[in-house]
């Protein structure tokens, strides 16, 4: 082919670059190990908890989101989310999957939009079979309430996840403020 008369050295360089690119693509997009699966599962749960500004609260969409979010929890679970709002300290807690679903279904109409970004995710497996893991990360939740108040809150997340029916689910979940007076 005219114009493609590369020396042997250049061919080697081209092949090396192509291999490095393929390895990078595989590493970042196609590599799967349990740590990646747990992180992906965590991000999926967050996606179900988020709410787009145009989404309505008290409707089938909300019920569907609440039900889907519930699937990320074991039947018996331990959820505790604490924070401060309007000068009041609050703690949301749930002990069963049904309570998680109903709590989220009740809370969802109170916010117009919710966006959560996770960072600093650390996964530590509790056993050699990788059936239980302890997960820590920080989360930044931004959004607006029905009153139009904008909020931006950081939380430290600590969770215990277990493999249940082939899926990773939360056996416990705690979200505490990054900084607090107590």
């Amino acid at each position: 082919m005219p114009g493609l008369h590369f020396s042997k050295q250049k061919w080697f360089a081209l092949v090396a670059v192509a291999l490095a690119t393929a390895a990078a693509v595989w590493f970042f997009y196609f590599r799967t190990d349990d740590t990646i699966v747990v992180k992906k599962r965590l991000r999926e749960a967050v996606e179900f908890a988020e709410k787009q500004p145009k989404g309505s609260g008290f409707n089938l969409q909300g019920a569907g989101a609440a039900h889907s979010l519930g699937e990320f929890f074991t039947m018996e679970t331990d959820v505790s989310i604490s924070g401060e709002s309007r000068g009041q300290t609050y703690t949301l807690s749930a002990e069963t999957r049904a309570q998680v679903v109903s709590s989220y279904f009740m809370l969802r109409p109170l916010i117009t939009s919710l966006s959560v970004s996770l960072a600093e995710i650390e996964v530590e497996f509790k056993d050699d079979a990788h059936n239980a893991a302890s997960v820590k990360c920080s989360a930044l939740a931004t959004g607006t309430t029905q009153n139009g108040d904008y909020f931006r809150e950081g939380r430290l997340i600590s969770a215990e996840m277990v493999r249940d029916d082939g899926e990773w689910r939360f056996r416990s979940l705690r979200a505490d403020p990054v900084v607090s007076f107590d």
Partner: protein
Amino acid sequence: MTVRNEPQQEESSTFVRPPKKRDWRTMCIRIGIIAGATVLICLFVLRPMVINGESMMPTYSSRGFTFAFLPYFKLYSPQRHQIVILKHAGFNTFLLKRVLAFPGETVEFREGVLYVDGRALDEPYVKNGCSWNFSRHEVPKGKIFVLGDNRSMPMQNHMGGMIDQSRLAGVPIW
């Protein structure tokens, strides 16, 4: 026949020639190195920060700009009254606060005056007084007590209090 070996006059005019292929390559490499170095410096040494919020007024206005010197706490320990930058969640949102107490010390507010270990702390940077009350709390091990300078806001609206020392990210350079 005589031959005069006169030196030829050199052409004094300067002329421009199109850059050679190698010049372009050198220029691209230089630009790449400068861009790479800039990115690395901004990520790990001097990180540009946009200040947003009123909690540090009047020391910092509600909208401002600074650079965070990130390696600072690898070299030094935090000092009382020092303004620090703390990781809030991830590495994209930070808090700008002042360090007021250390592990093992007690903090309390009485009518807007901050007491550390029972002694009133002199805070010349606080321009707006307040009437905050906060019962005595001990700063737990591994944490520090931080707060903004703007005390005219209700205490509940402040994002302050105990925070893990591991979240210290750096100091503002101005």
